[in-house]
């Protein structure tokens, strides 16, 4: 073996001590980096453990009916999470309903139509928007979007769809609709940047073959490129969904923070993340805090499952085309 001639094995050499020392350091460096990796895994474990342990009081008091009861009364120590789960699901679905068509169409434009230079610049700008802090979207939601929704969007919605229960009742500005709209603006950049990547990963020969057969540019895109990239696009939508579910500040600022279930999108609501943000610092009593942490656990579980799925979807398309 080559190591038998390694100077550290030969005590006669004057530098033996030095060589032994650097070999020890070599081991130390390895162990330190390994320890960091394990420590990070431990942190993830700690997150799960803490959420689980701290939500035990609520789990033992209410059991799983916590998730299906709709009464949230901290003074009477009655806790039911349904209004928050409802608000979270409604705002997230509304956000996706708006953001997905826009996001996918825009990514088609950026990947298939725009000249590369333009596409790169636009993508750079759009990705920059993903870096804007959520509290800033909330600020804009309160002072810019809500007045606009009040004066333009709501009157037209109620005059056209007013017969639907979705658009009935008074509009106070803060509402599920406002939260959904703000969220849709926040998640669009994510959908665009991931979908564009996935579309660009579809091999060029596929497009050339289709075009050579006489299809139009749109038919190629719609029937060849998008089906090829479908899984990855769905992955990007899942990523956006996870983000919309967990988004806290912007939603808290515009959703109205009212623990009620209402069929109308114009009514105020509440989301899981928003109730934690709003009430955690002032919560008194173990059961109250524990209930909020249980909500955190629910949110954690939801986003983990969705993210895990999304990553698998994006990974499989990326690998297949590689």
């Amino acid at each position, binding site marked *: 073996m080559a190591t038998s001639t390694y100077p550290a094995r030969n005590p006669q050499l004057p530098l033996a001590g030095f060589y032994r020392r650097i070999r020890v350091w070599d081991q130390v460096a390895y162990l330190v980096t390994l320890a960091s990796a394990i420590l990070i895994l431990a942190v993830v474990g700690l*997150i799960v453990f803490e959420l689980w342990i701290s939500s035990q009081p609520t789990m033992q008091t209410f059991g799983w009916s916590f998730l299906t009861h709709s009464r949230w009364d901290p003074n009477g120590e009655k806790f039911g999470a349904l209004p928050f789960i409802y608000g979270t699901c409604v705002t997230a679905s509304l956000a996706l309903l708006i953001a997905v068509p826009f996001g996918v169409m825009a990514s088609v*434009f950026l990947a298939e139509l725009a000249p590369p230079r333009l596409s790169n610049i636009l993508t750079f700008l759009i990705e*920059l928007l993903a870096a804007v802090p*959520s*509290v*800033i979207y909330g600020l*804009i939601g309160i002072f810019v979007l809500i007045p606009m929704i009040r004066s333009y969007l709501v009157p037209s919605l109620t005059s056209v769809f007013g017969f639907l229960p979705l658009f009935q009742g008074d509009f106070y500005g803060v509402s599920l609709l406002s939260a959904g709209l703000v969220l849709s603006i926040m998640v669009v950049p994510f959908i665009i940047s991931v979908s564009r990547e996935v579309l660009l990963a579809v091999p060029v020969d596929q497009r050339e073959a289709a075009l050579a057969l006489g299809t*139009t540019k749109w038919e190629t895109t719609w029937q060849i490129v998008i089906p090829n990239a479908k899984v990855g696009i769905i992955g990007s939508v899942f990523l956006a969904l996870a983000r919309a579910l967990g988004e806290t500040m912007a939603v808290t600022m515009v959703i109205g923070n009212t623990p009620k279930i209402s069929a109308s999108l114009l009514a105020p609501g509440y989301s899981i993340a928003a109730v934690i943000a709003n009430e955690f*610092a002032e919560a008194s009593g173990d059961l109250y805090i524990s209930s*909020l942490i249980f909500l955190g656990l629910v949110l954690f579980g939801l986003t983990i499952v969705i993210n895990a799925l999304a990553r698998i979807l994006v990974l499989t398309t990326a690998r297949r085309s590689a």
Partner: protein
Amino acid sequence: MLMAISPRRKFVNALMLSLSGLCTLIVISVLFFILGYLLFHGARSLNLQFLTSLPKPSGETGGGMANAIVGSFKVLLVATSIGVPLGFLAGVYLAEYSGKTFAFLFRYVVDLLNGVPSIVIGIIAYAVVVRPMKHYSALAGGVALGIMMIPIAVRTTEEFLRSVPNSLREGSLALGATKAKTIFAVVVPAAISGLISGLMLNLARVAGETAPLLFTALGNMFWSRGWMQPIATLPVMIYNYAISPEEDLHQQAWAAGFVLLALVLAVNVTAKMIIMRGPAASRR
């Protein structure tokens, strides 16, 4: 034989393609209308007093957010000193030592950690730091943001170390350097510009985080001394002022939003410029 494309197909083609362009235009213009509005409105509300003085008690006009600006930097300092070394070393392990399976699984876990909602991280920092110590503190806020910095620190470190050509490693090993020496004296310096820009992006991302600070750093109307007291931060101030009923505070929220956004975007653009130039420069 060439088949003529029917007018209907031509029409659908033109319609859908212009629709996709229109969608891009709408998305871009909505987003930029919003940011333009913020920059315009925020810059108007900004003045020197805002940057240098403390918040005024409720009811009085004027005052500023000097304590929150300093507070944000203090919390970020704690966060960086927790999250970055840990993430960097783990990234080194992934890029240089780890086997394929472990690297894949670890990367997956780190990605999941990246997707955990920030409010949940806040709960953890509350449970681990605030509850045992029995009071809110800059340290707790730093721990929350520090955990949030780990995933990006790991991923950027791994990515930029992997982009260093193997010939550098082989050259160093051939000269008799140990593996650790090779990594820390040759590979890391070769990737340094990428690592620094990754750190900048990471900082810019957590600098705007509000949710995990609400019940860890809490807030403070005065200067916060040391690391164990509640501390004001820019994002939390924006939130508190924006939802308050006072008109004067709304102006301050806009100004604070402007300062925060300007910092975040400037750091982002600089970091992305460094990354875009990086590989070409280091390969020469």
